[in-house]
């Protein structure tokens, strides 16, 4: 049997730690994502899932640990056309009108050289990306005239246009209605079929659930679960299941999706 070179993993993070303004937020994060995997990063508000994605994309510097993307140490990594990023945001609008096509076109920057016009391949990739998210008829419209879900899809098309191999999406389904979530699921399904690696931050998976290969659950800045996808109660239910009725002494802050009912009162 011929010996083939082992393809490096898209993401390899060992002992990752992140501190924001000196305050430790993430610690002991070990995460390896293999090519073609669809990973859902889950957890309550403030559990550090968005921070982890920001650390993996370099938007947040690591306070400790080693990160490599596609086998290259992060500091030396400059092959950004292999990476796509959909930030968490409510609106794609800015102070000056911009059309959907222009927003998506900025996703091709990783393939373009300075002072060069768009090539035919660039234009085709932009049109394709807009088509995949179902905004074909809106391509020439200003983004500020689109609904929130459509703006979110425009941002996804922007990341798609660069034809990346590794995709980061930060809460793409937040505040998006069901038809738009279905459209998003279909777009991500096509992406997955092409062999892309996807890391998605989500509160609730909804229509994305069948696509997910692996769930990573965070709690208080640590990884507490890494394995096959879970149902809702496993993620958001209490960490320790007590047999005895247990009353918290400290007032607790619950996230909107966390159930405040006591485990004994029939959570599961």
């Amino acid at each position, binding site marked *: 049997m011929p010996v083939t070179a082992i393809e490096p993993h898209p993401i390899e993070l060992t002992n990752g730690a992140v501190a924001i303004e000196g305050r430790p937020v993430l610690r002991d994060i070990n995460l390896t994502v293999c090519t073609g995997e669809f990973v859902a990063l889950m957890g309550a508000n403030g559990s550090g899932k968005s921070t982890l994605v920001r650390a993996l994309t370099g938007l947040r510097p690591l306070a400790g640990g080693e990160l490599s993307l596609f086998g290259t140490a992060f500091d030396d990594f400059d092959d950004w056309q292999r990476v796509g990023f959909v930030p968490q*945001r409510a609106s794609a609008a800015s*102070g000056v009108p911009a059309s959907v096509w222009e927003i998506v076109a*900025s996703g091709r920057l990783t393939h373009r050289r300075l*002072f060069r016009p768009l090539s035919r391949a660039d234009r085709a990739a932009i049109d394709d990306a807009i088509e995949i998210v179902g905004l074909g008829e809106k391509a*020439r419209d*200003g983004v500020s005239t689109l609904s929130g879900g459509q703006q979110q899809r425009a*941002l996804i098309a922007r990341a798609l246009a660069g034809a990346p191999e590794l995709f980061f999406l930060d809460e793409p389904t937040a505040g998006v209605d069901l038809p738009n979530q279905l459209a998003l699921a279909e777009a991500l399904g096509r992406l997955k079929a092409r062999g892309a690696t996807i890391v998605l931050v989500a509160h609730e998976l909804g229509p994305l659930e069948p696509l997910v290969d692996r769930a990573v659950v965070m709690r208080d800045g640590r990884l507490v679960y890494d394995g096959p996808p879970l149902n809702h109660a496993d993620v958001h239910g209490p960490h320790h299941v007590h047999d005895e009725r247990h009353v918290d002494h400290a007032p607790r802050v619950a996230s909107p999706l966390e159930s405040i009912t006591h485990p004994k009162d029939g959570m599961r």
Partner: protein
Amino acid sequence: MTPADLFALPAMQRALIAAVVTGLAAPVVGTYLVQRRLALMGDGLGHVAVTGVALGLLTGASPTWTAVIVAVLGAAIIELIRERGSANGDVALALLFYGGLAGGVLLTGISGQSAAFLGQYLFGSLLTIGISDLIVTMALSAVVIVLGIGLAPQLFAVAQDQEFAKVSGLRVRFYNLLVAVLAAVSVTVAMRTVGLLLVSALMVVPVAASQQLTRSFRATLLGAMVIGTIASLGGLVISAFASFKATVAPGPTIVLLALACFTVAWPIGSLLRRRRRLVEPFPVDPEVEALYGACPGEHDHQHGPACGHLAIEHGDHVDYVHDGHRHAVHVEASGERHYDEH
């Protein structure tokens, strides 16, 4: 003096060239500033540049060059404060602005120059522009236009979404600084045309006018350049002709003409947007479709292209807006026609 004589004057010809190049260059940077919601940054840099001009007067160096240097330094400091994102960043900017203006007036006094001389820079003096200043103006304008348009994809992406730009491998800090420096350069370029106190107007007002009518960034940028050129050239010509009757300075005329463009563009733009929103096709919702019923009222005419009722697409047919509700023609199997409420 006839108009032909006026345009034959070398001073007028120099002024015309300066007006065109600044009218083209200032809105380019202005578009990026408006996109970043930093419309007043040009104004602040104008104040800082006053100190630069005064420094030139004091040291005997060319005020244009000292203004460029001080404005660029000011831009770098503003960018630094902005990047730090300190909670009272706008207060820090205000300190810089007023410091710049006060320092400029103070230094001018010390240098023994009259306030009227500084006034040339504060409110512009197109007709006194010399050949060497004109060459500097043209060269700096060319730099601004080439970088502002040539790097448009990068500058657009950075201003639109910094985080995305960073993950695309763009050097965000460099581009932020570049916009700040280009803004400082445009301020000093436009200094002779409209003056430091009105400089921001030539950068921002054409963009504000242009974006009333556009849907894309590209069209906004090009439209702003056209409006900027019309305003600065038109303002100069109007003020030159009006000067036969009264003292009309070109600077304020240019700014007022740009504002006039905005005043015209605004109602047209809101009318267009209203119209576009009105005829936006209705979405098709199969679940609601079952609830459609016939409209009970009497109908004295058949809806059609000429009936005067607003026609809006709805899936595979057209709805007519009638007294606040929507009529769609429904032909039954028997051939009978009536209107359904959609």
